[in-house]
């Protein structure tokens, strides 16, 4: 009898309780790695990991195995969660506290996560610089340059063709070089909006 595949587990998670722990055990290390490449403190990393797995619970029903494997899907979802956290922070809208990952950290966890954060500081600077790219280019470049997915895997995660992915990657790298060459600080030109009451 074979172990359930990740795709099987996502289908089971969508169907009801029970399968999340196994999916979590398989991927919590990977998701933490994604987090330390994007956030520079242990608390945000912990919140990120918690949010990603809560999103897995919410979004597993939307996974379609005919459109790709579970792993690229997870990377895509994690990238969206990270983007959401960054934007909420930029917009100064309070972070969504669905499940406070940071509340689960103890002193040993801080030290351990911070070691990992320090180890990928250069990648994180690149990630920050990418935040000024158009969303679709940025999401693709993140998956390839930050998370190490192959272009075809990243294409699968974003539901685009491998050819389109290669074109976008070329464009994204060119734009990133231009942004870095312009000397702007990462995030400086990011458009920050929030909705507030207006008049009729």
């Amino acid at each position, binding site marked *: 009898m074979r172990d359930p595949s990740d795709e099987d587990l996502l289908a089971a998670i969508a169907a009801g309780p029970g399968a999340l722990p196994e999916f979590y055990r398989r991927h*919590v290390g990977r998701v933490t790695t994604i987090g330390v490449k994007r956030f520079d403190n242990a608390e945000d990393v912990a919140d990120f990991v918690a949010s990603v797995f809560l999103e897995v619970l919410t979004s597993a029903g939307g996974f379609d195995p005919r459109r790709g494997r579970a792993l690229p899907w997870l990377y895509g979802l994690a990238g969206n969660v990270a983007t959401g956290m960054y934007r909420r922070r930029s917009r100064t809208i309070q972070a969504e506290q669905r499940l406070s990952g940071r509340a689960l950290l103890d002193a040993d966890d801080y030290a351990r996560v911070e070691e990992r954060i320090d180890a990928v500081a250069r990648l994180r600077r690149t990630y920050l610089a990418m935040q000024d790219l158009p969303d679709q280019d940025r999401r693709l470049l993140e998956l390839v340059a930050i998370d190490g997915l192959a272009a075809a895997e990243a294409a699968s995660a974003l539901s685009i063709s491998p050819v389109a992915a290669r074109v976008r990657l070329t464009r994204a790298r060119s734009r990133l070089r231009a942004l870095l060459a312009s000397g702007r600080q990462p995030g400086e030109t990011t458009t920050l909006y929030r909705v507030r009451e207006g008049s009729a």
Partner: protein
Amino acid sequence: MIDAQHFEDRLLDALTEVDARRAGTSPAFQHREPRRRVGRTLALAVAASFLVFGTGAVATATGLFSSAPVAVKRIFAGLDGTSGSSVDGSKAVQIGVIDDHLAYAAPTSNGGFCLYFASNPRSGPTGTACISRGAGASEAVFSVLPGTDGGVLFGRVGEADAASVDITFPDDGGVLDTRVGESGFFAVKIPERAMRTLMIELVPGSKGYPPTKDGRPILSFDLTRVPAISVIARDAQGNQVAHGVPVAELDPVPSDQSTPR
């Protein structure tokens, strides 16, 4: 000696608890059969909405207006509304599926409401947006949440008899008809053609805008176009019962501002 599993174990316990609590609580967690996707077609809007460009196309309604799952209620509970209001996460309801994103709404203590569009790795808008203004008896407050490859028009009607809203975009951008759901909420994915009427063209390479390949202009959402959208709420007999009130002031927020208004 560092116990390398402490955080992970505690998080697993917490997630397992959340997972167990969702047993039979909400259709939002029920498995949905994957549906066919044709290119970038945006297939499903909220409720029975349809786009009218000469001929209409009817969309499907599924799982609408059920109570939101616990995890989503927690999201709302952790949000602040605007103007110091609080969000009542316990009253959050699922209001539809927009471009593969589950959409939820919850009321705020000052009569407004917040929307949450669950993330989806594929595409489209995601995130939260709040409107602090309540809808009067003859009003349908609405706003637009711009997304990566489109946007969502969402709002709330104050008139209890309202059954649907007609949404007319400027510059022949088209007309949408969407159902009003529980508590007067409505939301609909804005088609590409209509979204273009809400955008302006920016010159690449100027004013800090990045250059583009072949110098094509950059399209950017223009909030000043939102009041040009016409929204009319109608009752089941087709009579107008409320007029649209745009809540379209998207305010640039300084990045060093530490607290929301």
